[in-house]
């Protein structure tokens, strides 16, 4: 029941989500979701389609308004802050589907990302160093790049803003596995510069490989929350598909007094 690996400052999460409820019209996409991400972590959200993962990231980024709940960055409430202000405060999203500026070149995409950047180690030059191929092709229009290359540019565009929390939404979508692995392989270099990563991933095994902490969503509820080392594949599967799981709101962080299902190892969340 220890907090090892959760950052030096176990008491202060960098990003905190409290009881977040989000609706799409009449549909409740997220139901009182809570999570805490500590500095330097790779926090992975997994779950099937429609579980609410992307909605969660988009709401954290400010592109969607929650019905209830709050989002805190470094202890400060940013729930009402506009998305562009959230980006300049340090929450930067790499959206699902890349969403590059199609009529702009690679370099121009990065330049836009750097326009309102915070001070920090990441520059356009450094992004070129991270992705070796990019410097030569920097004048090319992004619509002409391959999927993996576009994903790299999208990540680069977010990096040059020098975020504190990097939100990665479904990096693997539409990409060949070897490409996905290569991109995830960059994570350590990214983390080394002091960033924290919160990612959403449909590919569970990939998520398990890179994450330092895991949360599984199902139909807007949290069904699992643990460190990868502490759970078995069966437990993850059970959480993913909702087997033996009672429907209903997940108990608030720190209040859980019993395992979610028989046989699981509790993750400790000393508050």
């Amino acid at each position, binding site marked *: 029941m220890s907090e090892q690996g959760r950052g030096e400052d176990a008491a202060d999460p960098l990003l905190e989500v409290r009881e977040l409820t989000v609706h799409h019209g009449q549909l409740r996409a997220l139901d009182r979701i809570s999570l805490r991400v500590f500095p330097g972590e790779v926090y992975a959200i997994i779950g099937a389609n429609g579980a609410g993962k992307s909605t969660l990231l988009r709401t954290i*980024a*400010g*592109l969607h308004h929650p019905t209830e709940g709050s989002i805190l960055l470094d202890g400060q409430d940013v729930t009402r802050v*506009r*998305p*562009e*202000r959230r*980006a*300049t405060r340090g929450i*930067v*999203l790499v*959206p699902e589907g890349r*969403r*590059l*500026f*199609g*009529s*702009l070149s690679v370099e*121009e*995409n990065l*330049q*836009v*990302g750097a*326009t*309102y*950047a915070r001070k920090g180690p990441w520059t356009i030059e450094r992004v070129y160093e991270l992705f070796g191929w990019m410097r030569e092709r920097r004048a090319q229009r992004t619509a002409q790049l391959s999927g993996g290359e576009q994903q790299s540019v999208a990540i680069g*565009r*977010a990096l040059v*803003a020098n975020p504190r929390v990097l939100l990665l939404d479904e990096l693997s979508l539409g990409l060949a596995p070897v490409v996905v692995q290569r991109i995830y392989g960059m994570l350590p270099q990214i983390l080394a510069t002091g960033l924290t990563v919160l990612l959403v991933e449909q590919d569970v095994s990939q998520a398990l490989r890179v994450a330092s902490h895991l949360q599984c969503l199902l139909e807007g509820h949290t069904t699992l929350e643990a460190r990868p080392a502490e759970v078995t594949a069966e437990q993850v599967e059970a959480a993913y598909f909702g087997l033996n799981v009672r429907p209903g709101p997940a108990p608030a962080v720190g209040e859980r007094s019993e395992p979610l299902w028989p046989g699981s190892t509790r993750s400790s969340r000393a508050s």
Partner: protein
Amino acid sequence: MAWVNAIIQGILTGGLYALFACGLSLMFGVMKVVNLAHGDLAVIGGYVAIGIITVTHLPVLWSIVVVVPLMAALGYVLQRTLIQASLDRSVLTTLIVTFGLSVVIENGLLQFFTANSRAIGTGNAIITSSFSLGSQIQIAYLLVVIFATAVIVLLGLQYFLSRSKYGRLIRAVADDKEAAQMCGADYRHVFGIAAAIAFGTVALAGIAYGMYSQLAPTTGTDTILLFAFAAVVIGGLGSLWGTLLGGVVLGVAQQIGAQINISYEVLAGYLVFLAVLVVRPEGLTARRARS
């Protein structure tokens, strides 16, 4: 030779029409707004210039220096308030609001300034005269100046959009405004900048037209808006130089029509516009068909 003269006149008036059109093209390209009050705003620019000249007796050039930034500021404010509010609701609302604005402006001008048309006196004899090439070709200096101005404005716009920070932001926001938000850009502010530029060019267009011809309350819709739109459609959206091409084609079509029968001038332009609409609705310079 009269035909050659007509074609040259048409090409030169194309510059004026391009000036009409580039603001409309910019606002549609960036914000997807069809500003039905576009022409009326040009007329306002012209009227304000007339007012300034009447009161201060300054030369026309000074009035341009005052009116263009003034209108640009108006554009920013109008975009951030009225137009953004309409955009947030729906495309229909934007059309209604800009149409309403057009009606209010025109009838307001009618009410306060009567239906009489006014011209912007240039005072400078050289500008109002023309020079000859051969025996049948007369070219007005003013028209050449206007054409040159249009080319300079388009060049300036192109440079601004491709090289400057805000130009990049404008293009980015036009591509994907949500993605721009994620990069920290407030797209409403960027829209405002684009609108300011559009309104600035529109003011210039109004003043140019006031010098070349006359301004009346209904000129905004009768002439400027419809010609601007025709130039944009013929030339193709998404290309500044396409706007110049469209203006030129429109101008030439009108002059050729006028050669056949003086009263066919405006109609000829519209017929060419309709033909382009049928055959190649994406415009002459577009690379691929628009849906």
